[in-house]
């Protein structure tokens, strides 16, 4: 396809190359013929020219065979627009800066929305991954006890994989020092669920202990030395074999660790196998491990079906361990929804807010363009007088505002990049998955679409008021050109009113958001954190054995 186009372009260049020479040659031959017929050179030239017709028209028609007329005119408009921008640098700079801010803010927020809400998780079959929890009736602790996890793993038909994990801080001896690291301890199913395929070595065999290092941790503390594979490294004082190293790009996307665990969310340093201990016979001394649980639905199964099955299995387990635990309920949601949590609504509100800002920027720019439009009436009148049609003028104005918006939009993408880099650096945990924010093709397409829409919104108003310009009046009465027509004045007043209205909406919205934020921080969660810790103790009901230490909640 593009080969054909290239051929055509090459052909065009070759054919058009010496059109002038061709026509000159033609005229000279005709002239020579005329002289042979006895004319004087002057008459011969005049007759030849008359016979040929308009040279300019012939050239234009010939060019039009190869280059579509609209393209030629577009290039003219672009050249003209560039000249306008250069001639009024201050005006153009203000317009472009305003647009850059508006488009930049909108693009930045959209890239966050894109990363957090639109893009799927980076796991294989991410749309089938679910988060499973059994919170107690009036509590928010979303943990699962090992008897439930084992029963589900052995009996559930609606899941094709299930894994328990726990994010914690652990001490690992890297040779010359002991490092406090952020660790995911996970059961067998985790590796497959998370798509963790080590670049070096393997994942631990089922039922065996083992450490899988993240690439960054491997580089930093083991200097990237593959010799560490197969060696036992003291982990919490107990030698544990390093079995693998993950590839550099690997990263898990998990909900932030529970607040009471005291672990900050952030990059995971390494992963280790966690082995589920059989709980032993039900009784007051039963020890259970606590896990966060993720699973993968079988294809085509609904959340509701899985919920019913898991709940039935859980009911049996509850009967067996009965009295020791308080009543719990089953909660199963898509992992993506669990990770994003309440951020969805805030992000959508934020997006709406920046769109309002963009609209205000548009109104400002439209106003500026209108103001300039009234000083350009004379130019428009002259161009109309020499034969530019209404649609041609309209198109020229649109091309001009498109160019302003294109430059503003490009600057806006840079603004967005800077804003995002700053945001991710200062507040990486402000929104879940914020660190994944990048400006991918979708974001760039969004920025381009916003720029075009902005150009049309900003450019149409002045184009239409100019359209109404009366050629006769403007050309006849030079004094009138300085004063804006009533129509354009009315348009400008309307714009200012709209702008004011938008600003008020934005201000009120921001005020309300601040107020609810104030309320949230004033009265954090409706209960005190201390009580929550005590409550967690009560949730366990039976004494938590401290000997299965790493998987248990330790205090």
């Amino acid at each position, binding site marked *: 396809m593009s080969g054909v186009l290239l051929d055509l372009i090459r*052909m*065009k260049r070759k054919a*058009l190359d010496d059109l002038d020479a*061709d026509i000159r*040659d*033609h005229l000279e*031959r*005709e002239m020579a013929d005329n002289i042979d017929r006895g004319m004087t050179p002057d008459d011969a030239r005049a007759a030849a020219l008359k016979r040929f017709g308009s040279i300019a028209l012939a050239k234009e*028609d010939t060019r039009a*065979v190869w280059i579509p007329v609209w393209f030629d005119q577009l290039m003219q408009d672009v050249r003209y627009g560039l000249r306008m921008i250069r001639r009024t640098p201050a005006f153009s700079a203000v317009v472009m800066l305003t647009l850059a801010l508006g488009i930049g803010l909108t693009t930045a927020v959209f890239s966050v929305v894109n990363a957090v809400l639109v893009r799927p998780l980076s796991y294989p079959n991410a749309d089938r991954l679910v988060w499973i929890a059994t919170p107690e009736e009036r509590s928010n602790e979303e943990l699962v006890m090992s008897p439930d996890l084992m029963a589900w793993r052995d009996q559930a038909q609606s899941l094709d994989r299930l894994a328990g994990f726990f994010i914690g801080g652990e001490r690992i001896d890297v040779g010359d020092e002991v490092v406090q690291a952020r660790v995911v301890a996970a059961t067998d199913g985790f590796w497959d669920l998370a798509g963790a395929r080590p670049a070096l070595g393997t994942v631990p065999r089922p039922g065996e202990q083992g450490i899988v290092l993240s690439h960054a941790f491997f580089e930093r503390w083991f200097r990237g030395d593959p010799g560490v594979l197969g060696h036992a490294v003291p982990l919490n004082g107990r030698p544990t074999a390093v079995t693998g190293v993950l590839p550099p790009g690997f990263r898990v996307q998990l909900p932030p660790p529970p607040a009471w665990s005291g672990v900050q969310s952030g990059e995971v340093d390494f992963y280790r196998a966690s082995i589920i201990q059989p709980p032993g016979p039900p009784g007051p001394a039963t020890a259970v491990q606590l896990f966060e649980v993720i699973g993968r639905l079988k294809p085509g199964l609904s959340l509701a079906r899985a919920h019913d099955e898991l709940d039935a299995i859980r009911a049996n387990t509850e009967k067996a361990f009965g009295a020791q635990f308080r009543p719990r309920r089953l909660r199963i949601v898509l992992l993506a929804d669990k990770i994003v949590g309440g951020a969805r609504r805030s992000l959508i509100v934020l997006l709406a807010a920046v769109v309002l800002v963009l609209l205000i920027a548009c109104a400002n720019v439209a106003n500026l363009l209108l103001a300039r439009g009234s000083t350009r009436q004379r130019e428009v009148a002259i161009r109309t007088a020499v034969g530019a049609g209404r649609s041609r003028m309209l198109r020229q104005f649109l091309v001009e505002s498109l160019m302003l918006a294109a430059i503003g939009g490009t600057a806006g993408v840079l603004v967005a990049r800077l804003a995002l880099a700053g945001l991710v650096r200062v507040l990486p945990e402000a929104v879940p998955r914020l660190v994944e924010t990048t400006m991918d093709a979708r974001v760039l397409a969004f920025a381009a679409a916003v720029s075009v829409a902005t150009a049309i919104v900003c450019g149409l108003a002045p184009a239409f008021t100019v359209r109404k310009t009366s050629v006769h009046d403007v050309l006849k009465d030079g004094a009138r050109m300085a004063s804006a027509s009533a129509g354009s004045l009315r348009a400008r007043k309307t714009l200012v009113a709209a702008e004011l209205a938008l600003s008020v909406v934005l201000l009120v919205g921001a005020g309300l958001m601040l107020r609810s934020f104030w309320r949230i921080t004033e009265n954090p969660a409706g209960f005190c954190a201390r009580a929550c810790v005590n409550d967690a103790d009560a949730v366990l009901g039976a004494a938590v054995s401290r000997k299965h230490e790493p998987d248990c909640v330790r205090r």
Partner: protein
Amino acid sequence: MSTGEVRERIKLLQGTLDLLVLRTLLLGPAHGHAIMKAIERSSDDVLKVEQGSLYPALHRLIKRGLIGFDHGTSDNNRRAKYYRLTPKGRKQLAVETSKWDKLASAIARVLRPVT
């Protein structure tokens, strides 16, 4: 000028010039001026063509691949562009000619019905 000016000249139908150019080039490669002269001469100067309109027609035909061109030197030692028929153009000429014949005879039948 000559008698041609006295005679009434007929304006060409849209697109007919392309056909005439193809027909002229069937005789061999020629430069623009020669093509125009040949058309005028063989139509006994009846057809009124602005010579300038030859060039868009030539370029239309080049774009459709019906004619090609080479640079050559003419009789009086001047460089000129020589247009020539391509095999594709030869085929197209046959098609267009038979189409034209059909059209012409059909119109003739309508205008002068055999009574």
